[in-house]
């Protein structure tokens, strides 16, 4: 079976800065591919290439077997790739229903009387969100008044409604509390069960391991590992993600600095 999205040895340079080099990943329908990495590992660059915001400089990028070079987010959307960004998923001051259809608004009428199908937009927004378990008091409220988790869910519901085949999620749980993260992860799993291929970008290995099928680790713009879930345990994933030997070094340094590593509480100092 052909992968929905496949990157092979993809690189991106900004002038003489190597933002991404030799990264490969596969996204299959009904699977979640997690991209893990610390700050500055190249996660954002990777997402921008898949979303069509930047063009890659080297390597191949195929969508359903066809090699592409995306010039705009519109092109990515037309090919079924929908991206939900952590901060820029929605326009806060606009009502929920306007946000839901932004960029793909349904119209009725023709010529100069072509107008938004407002009744359909409101009704669809309400029913689609209800289907995902979000019961809005009022679809007219500015989306900025929703909680961070709800906003992410609206953005995910929107992508699913518009028939995305691949859903790219940029740190959907980064700014959320434990409970809200759980809610968002539930919708991510729901999107996967609906047959979408999902790319989940995160720096939280615990969240990734809960839902992921494959894990790609990035470090300083390069691949640091690629594993199927059956090949790796959470502890090992966490260790690799945090930089393995660097973590050992860190605990060594902390121990020398007088931090109790053996769990014995100390009432000196603080």
């Amino acid at each position: 079976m052909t992968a929905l999205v496949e990157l092979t040895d993809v690189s991106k340079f900004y002038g003489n800065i190597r933002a991404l080099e030799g990264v490969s990943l596969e996204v299959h329908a009904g699977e979640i591919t997690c991209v893990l990495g610390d700050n500055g590992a190249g996660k954002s660059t990777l997402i921008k290439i898949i979303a069509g915001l930047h063009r890659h400089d080297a390597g191949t990028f195929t969508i359903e077997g066809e090699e592409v070079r995306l010039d705009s987010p519109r092109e990515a959307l037309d090919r079924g790739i929908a991206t939900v960004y952590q901060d820029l998923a929605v326009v806060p001051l606009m009502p929920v229903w306007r946000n839901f259809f932004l960029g793909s608004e349904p119209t009725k009428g023709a010529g100069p009387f072509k107008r938004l199908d407002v009744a359909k937009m409101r009704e669809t927004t309400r029913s689609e969100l209800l289907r995902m378990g979000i019961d809005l008091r009022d679809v007219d409220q500015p989306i900025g008044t929703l909680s961070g988790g709800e906003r992410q869910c609206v953005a995910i519901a929107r992508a699913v409604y518009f028939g995305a085949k691949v859903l790219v999620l940029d740190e959907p749980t980064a700014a959320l509390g434990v409970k809200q993260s759980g809610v968002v992860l539930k919708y991510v799993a729901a999107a996967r069960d609906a047959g979408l291929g999902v790319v989940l970008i995160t720096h939280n290995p615990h969240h990734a391991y809960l839902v992921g099928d494959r894990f790609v680790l990035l470090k300083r713009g390069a691949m640091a590992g690629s594993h199927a879930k059956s090949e790796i345990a959470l502890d090992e994933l966490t260790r690799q993600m945090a930089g393995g030997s660097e973590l050992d070094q860190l605990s060594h340094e902390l121990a020398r600095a007088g931090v109790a590593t053996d769990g014995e509480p100390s009432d000196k100092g603080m």
Partner: protein
Amino acid sequence: MSAEATAPADERLLRRGILRRLMGRPELGSVVGAAAVFVFFSFVAESFLQTSSLSTVLYASSTIGIMAVPVALLMIGGEFDLSTGVMVTSSALVSSMFSYQMTANVWVGVGVSLLATLAIGFFNGFMLTRTKLPSFIITLGTFLMLTGLNLGFTKLISGTVSTKTIGDMEGFDSARAVFASHLTLGGVDLQVTILWWFGLVALATWVLLRTRVGNWIFAVGGGSDAARAVGVPVNKTKIGLYMGVAFCAWISGQHLLMSYDVVQSGEGVGNEFLYIIAAVIGGCLMTGGYGSAIGSAVGAFIFGMTSKGIVYAQWNPDWFKFFLGAMLLLATLLNAWVRKRAEAK
């Protein structure tokens, strides 16, 4: 969130919805302000309530209002235009000088002026989207350049600071009928600019609230990165907004020319702020993403009432700018307060 909570939640929606919808309208602050100004001048100026005064007030409002509409749309789209005041003059100058120098029908000059003015608007939008510099800087540059060109070209061509009269040229009468005539409706003398103004407000409101482009205007102002990410053509929308401003500057410019038949090349400087003030009093946010075309009309109406009301009250008009400034502050504070209440969960 649970199923049993659905029914009572819907009841609450009905009751709160009406109040909230009213409170959430961007125009609300300006309508309250306009009512206050109207009542105030009705008491202090006896002649304020006569129909002839009303038509004078409406005319004064329309000259600002025609430009306040596109400026409001532009501000909702998150940008400024400081070149609007002199752009109106440029548009009138091009039209007048082209007709006169080519001894062409006035309508030819009007057509050339439309193209030239739209080109200025395109230039503003294109420079903004290409360079990503703040619109404040780009349009400040355009403002200064146009001011210089207006004066320089007029002196070069006519030898004085004003254009030659085109009042006796072919097509002037019909052009005046379109841009600067009077009509009498039910005994009230109305300037045709009032019709232009109302027409533009209606058109802009329709575009903003009921078309895809309107949705995009709100989106590019409220979060241009988010808009771009979901496929909104951000750059085209912004360039279009600047060209909308230019189109209305063309209407205003032709009115300026046709009401007298000559144009002073130094006119228009400072008017750009009046347009912005009308838009802000009408509920437009300085940061973009929020506002309305009707609000800008109410803002322009407040401007008209104040500028003429002071005359009818027989006060020294020197005080006018003070009132305008105070009104701007009050309106902005009121808007901020109303919006905070409306958005409170």
